[in-house]
């Protein structure tokens, strides 16, 4: 691990679950590393793979998408698209030379503040171990 290295994470959080879960972590004062920058989206299904690629291109060390649990999407089925879309996207990232550990799709409900904070902590830790991205 490189001393003092702070990975940067971009988090695309859906308004109804992931973002609300992150809010709950806040109101419950559950601390986690300050490495994540959150972009609010209405639904995890709104996240275009292009946005993930651009994040990596702009120097993100990790990208997180957090949506509602399958079956609980505010828009009925948006997260099913997310799940399937990014299952296909993972091998493409590896093809580009970006380790698949750098990209996570997770389900965080509005009541899972603790889960969100744990998630950011473990992701930050894992990225720190992985070190800075290789130059393309």
């Amino acid at each position, binding site marked *: 691990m490189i001393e003092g290295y702070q990975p*940067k994470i*971009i988090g695309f959080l859906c*308004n*109804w*679950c992931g*973002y*609300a879960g*992150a*809010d709950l*972590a*806040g*109101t419950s*004062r*559950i*601390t*986690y*590393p*300050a490495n994540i*920058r*959150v*972009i*609010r*989206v*209405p*639904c995890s*299904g*709104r*996240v*275009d*793979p*292009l*946005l993930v690629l*651009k*994040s990596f291109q*702009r*120097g*993100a060390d990790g990208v997180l998408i957090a949506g509602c649990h399958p*079956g*609980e999407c*505010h*828009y*009925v*089925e*948006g997260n099913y*698209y997310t799940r399937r*879309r990014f299952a296909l996207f993972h091998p493409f990232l590896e093809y580009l030379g970006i380790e698949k550990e750098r990209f996570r799709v997770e389900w965080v*409900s*509005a*009541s*899972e503040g603790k889960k969100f*904070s744990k998630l950011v902590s473990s992701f930050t830790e894992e990225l720190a171990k992985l070190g800075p991205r290789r130059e393309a």
Partner: protein
Amino acid sequence: MARIGVFICHCGTNIAGTVDIAEVMAAAEKMPQVVFVDDNKYTCSEPGQASIRDAIIANRLNRVVIGSCSPRMHEMTFRRTVAAAGLNPYLLEIANLREHCSWVHSGDTVAATAKAIELVRMAVAKVSRAEALFPKEIGLTKRALVVGGGVAGIQAALDIADAGYEVVLVEREPSIGGHMAQLDKTFPTLDCSACILTPKMVDVAQHPKITLLTYAEVQKVNGFVGNFEVEILHKAKKVDHSKCTGCGTCWQKCPEKLPSEFDHGLGQRTAIYIPFAQAVPPKPVIDTEHCRYMKYLEFMEQGKEGKKPPQCLICEKLCPTGAIDWEQQDQVSTEQFGAIVVATGYQAFDAAVYGEYGAGRYPDVISGLQLERLMNASGPTSGEVIRPSDGSHPQTVVFVSCVGSRDDQKGRSYCSKVCCMYMAKHAIMLKEHDPEIQSYIFYIDIRAGGKDYEEFAQRAQEEYGALYLRGRVSKIYPQNGKLIVCGEDSLIGRPVEIAADLVVLATGMIPSAGAAEMARRLNISCDSNNFFIEAHPKLRPVETLTDGVFLAGSCIGPRDIPECVAQGSAAAAKVAALFSHDTLTSDPMTATIDAMRCIGCLLCVEACPFNAIDSLVTSDGRTVAGVIESVCEGCGLCVSTCRPGAANLRGFTQQQLLAEVMVL
């Protein structure tokens, strides 16, 4: 050219205690297109909002960024603020500096401040690409659906109807009344529960604006606020209620007897039945699973071998009005509503989970609700408190509190709130039934928060001699016709053993069966215990995050009767406020499709969960997709599905989200 104003909120010390506000302001001043930066102790206060309005006008700001609490908290507030200064409310972006920064990075000012600056930078980038948006007006159906006919649902239905709007009340049981109808007396006034509830039940049945649908369930919900389309399943009653007079001959003569759900298995009901004497409507349904004739029909249909069940038909033969209708089948109707109140209530925790207490194994270990039925004059024993095992009168009664409450081991960490009070009530009532009865109550804490509650709990001890023992019960076992209750009195630090005639487990509240499925149907959220989540626990306690869907009563969490009634009225007030408008404004954050870019693949039509995209033909004869704005919910699924980049989502455009990424 955008002229962006950035306003950083201290939120007292909530943000300023962790984030260096001066540093964030200094950084914001250097951000592109930012022409004005200010801070405020409390931006949401009236002076805070006024300072934003003044700054917009004085500095000719045409975009605003507010660094404050979560947009889920105050986005609507601040949209109104900027609108009051003449700015389009959608030219506002909020940087979440509290929930996502200061509150979760306390103690690390350097990192928190650096993050706050980046969050503001992202918001500035996003707002610089924002466009003015204009809501559209849509019609609404001024007709409300209330789901659940307990006291909360009854109150909501009555209040909405009294406000002059039509209400449909759906209840899945054959009668309304809910759990309150099962209770004998209510704490702390010892009012007779039925005496105060049944008049309300009758009011529901007789109100000209209320349509009561019992033995019916909500199956499917489509649409949005003002325009819900709901599929209601009408379970076959096998009795034509338009002919039935409720004379009672059928249920008195029906030969098939089974345990009554309403009496929690302590009494019996027949296969054609009303759940209790004061049921509303006072007309029976046939339990097709247990009816002898239905079993006979099933037997004949399947052509089984063996003993033929009797072709009973007693109810049909005796019915004076010919109301029995064997042809009646389950039916589904689709109805339009403008608002939905969900009041699906609770069910009692199943005490059998505590094997050491022996509920279900020892007949004299009963639940609080079972004791209510035993004490109730219209209950299975006509109000005589007896031991279910031998019918004798108990002299020593032991109560065990927190069965299924405040117990992480059983996955129920919350307090069910009513049990302390109903144990005190039971101790008082038992003494009034028989002065020889001695009650012992094992408790963890006595929680008696509520008007006159503490005084009531004290009275149980001082005037009625209930003995409170602070400690958990570890084991209950039968010996010589008694139940030996082994517990601990933690105040004297000694184990205690009591030979009890009757043990009452104060079972807690859990969400009623099917709550999670109901939440899914309505598109609302559940907490980890499957109680429904309100839009804000303090400020919006009866609303949900789905517009037009309101909550009331113990489907949100354990509630006592006054709270359920208050919430029923509160939800009704919300519905009445909604219906006081002739049109609603639709959220303008909908999808758009650029017809020039669209290649007509129509993948978006398939992806859209709401059927809000249709194919159209342009003037030059091309097939393209088009958004039906009144139906679009704004999820943006079409945007990420669109290959040529023709679809976009107002408020979360590709350009705005990319701008946020690009400033990293």
